């Protein structure tokens, strides 16, 4: 166990020094690696640990992005404060949805459908709200400075993104070791059995959903102040929800490192192929590849890439129980 932390510390050190050798373009790719790793981790808290698949996580990204942006534009709140308020807003919506769904015992596909329904309703409402720019989208003024969460160049975003990933890793690791995390896993493995020994299923599913939606919304603020443009079809869409679920599934659901590994594998490929295929006139090809990847993961390695990595490094660490 100590050895795995040493290894992670080493990787962290490399990541801290890496920007010295990267140009703006590569820095940008790393920013997206961190962004999607963080989002995947947020989704993982709900789906990976409690087993309730959400296909509507873009809803929380959108809520976080819009609340913090509107507060900054009209009230003058710093996005750092707006980020927390946005997180609370997303938690409120998430908890309302979760209460309705879990209270009535919706599981599996029914839960998936209700998350999609809420996200789609959110997207359609956002698309028709005047202050959000409707079909034109919302442009955000560029006012660089720490207080405004806006910077020239990609370097500050690199470190903030890395900070987000480390934050999410710590949250997940603490959860894993805590009673809550064990309740989550118990509910995933066998809800009836867990309830029969006194785990309050409704309560702990709500806690997982609350944490997950709060943290997801923080990424929305990050995205808004990195891209400076918000449109419901990009930030609240099913497409983003699929991007979010793809990485933890490929990396390994229900593990702390799975989403991060998934993002390091998929994001650079996705960014490169997206720009390459689009130039060659094959728009959408990367989504076909996503599709094949999802099918292949389920059919051939449902435990994700991490199970192979674990097997690979186990001899080095002298323990098969690593991670």
């Amino acid at each position, binding site marked *: 166990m100590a050895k795995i932390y040493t290894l992670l510390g080493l990787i962290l050190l490399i990541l801290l020094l890496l920007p010295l050798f990267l140009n703006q373009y590569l820095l940008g790719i790393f920013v997206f690696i961190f962004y999607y790793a963080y989002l995947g981790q947020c989704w993982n808290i709900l789906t990976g640990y409690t087993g309730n698949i959400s296909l509507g996580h873009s809803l929380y990204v959108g809520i976080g992005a819009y609340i913090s942006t509107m507060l900054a534009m009209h009230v003058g709140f710093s996005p750092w404060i707006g980020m927390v308020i946005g997180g609370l807003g997303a938690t409120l919506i998430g908890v309302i949805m979760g209460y*309705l769904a879990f209270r009535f015992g919706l599981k*599996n596909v029914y839960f998936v459908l209700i998350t999609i*329904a809420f996200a789609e*309703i959110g997207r359609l409402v956002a*698309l*028709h709200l005047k202050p959000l720019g409707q079909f034109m989208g919302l442009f955000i003024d560029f006012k660089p400075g720490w207080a405004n969460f806006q910077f020239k160049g990609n370097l500050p975003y690199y470190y903030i993104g890395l900070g987000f990933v480390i934050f999410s890793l710590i949250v997940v690791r603490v959860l894993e070791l805590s009673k809550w995390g064990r309740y989550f896993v118990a509910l995933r493995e066998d809800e009836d059995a867990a309830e029969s020994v006194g785990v309050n299923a409704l309560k702990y599913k709500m806690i997982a959903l609350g944490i997950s939606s709060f943290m997801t919304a923080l990424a929305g603020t990050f995205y808004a102040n990195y891209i400076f443009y918000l449109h419901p079809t990009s930030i609240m869409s099913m497409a983003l929800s699929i991007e979010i679920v793809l990485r933890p*599934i490929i990396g390994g659901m229900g593990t702390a490192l799975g989403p991060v590994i998934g993002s390091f594998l998929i994001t650079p490929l996705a960014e490169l192929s997206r720009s390459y295929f689009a130039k060659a006139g094959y728009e959408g090809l990367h989504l076909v590849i996503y*599709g094949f990847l999802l*099918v*292949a993961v389920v059919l051939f390695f449902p435990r994700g890439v991490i199970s192979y990595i674990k097997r690979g490094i186990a001899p080095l660490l002298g323990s098969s129980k690593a991670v």
Partner: protein
Amino acid sequence: MNLALVVQLIIGGFLMGGVYSLIALGLSLIFGVLRVINFAHGEMMIWGMYIAYTILLLTGIDPFFSLVISAGALFILGYMVQRIVVNRIIEFPEAMQVIAMIGTALIFENGARLIWGPDYRSPASRFALSSIWIGKIMIDFPRLLAFLIAILIAALVFLFLKYTDTGKAIRSSADNRLGALLVGTDVDRVYAICFGIGTACVGAAGALLVPLMPLSPHIGPPFTMVSFIIVILGGMGSLIGAVVGGLIVGVAESVATIFLPSSLKQIVSFSLMVAILLLKPKGLFGR
């Protein structure tokens, strides 16, 4: 408010609902027998649409006739999808099934985008603009025809399931998989045929929609959602429920355009689904 307009919207929605019914019938049949949810349903439908569209462009044959080819092609596609993907995940936890089916949906949607391009297209079909007037009420002729054909196909599917040997095998496999295996049914083949019939329904429905709306690869996912809503409304696995649910959703979406912009009409059906899931999750005709 103009009463004639309301009546016209109700009739228009009802006719559209017939096509919805056929789409949802396919989904409900697949779920009822295989217990797998076809998340790629709307995405497969656009393949039916594009096949009919391509035939119309190349030969000028109207989609109302070429729907036979669309349905046949989608039967083969569905049969293959069942054999290659669904058959292997049928014993998996539902969560993993959903992920694999989402992957399949992405392949179909974006495969269509690669082949036919992302733009909206509205082919000029022969009946596209003709209409019938009854007093002050206008009825779209292609819509009426699509409705009649959709209901006819739905009826044929019912008869097929009721009276043919394959249909009986499908129903018995749905009722009791082990029992069907014990009396020597090739359940895998029956499942593949059933999946094929389900996707053939949606292929035919896709062809019927070609004269009714502009087509693009990205109208698939909304149709997947609409068919889920209908099937949940009618009751998962209930075929009658799918038909009745289709008509209800068709009318509800159409009437909603009186007081909502038409780009928001989906909110009505999504809210309908949330309400049904919370109040009566088994649906109107669920067992």
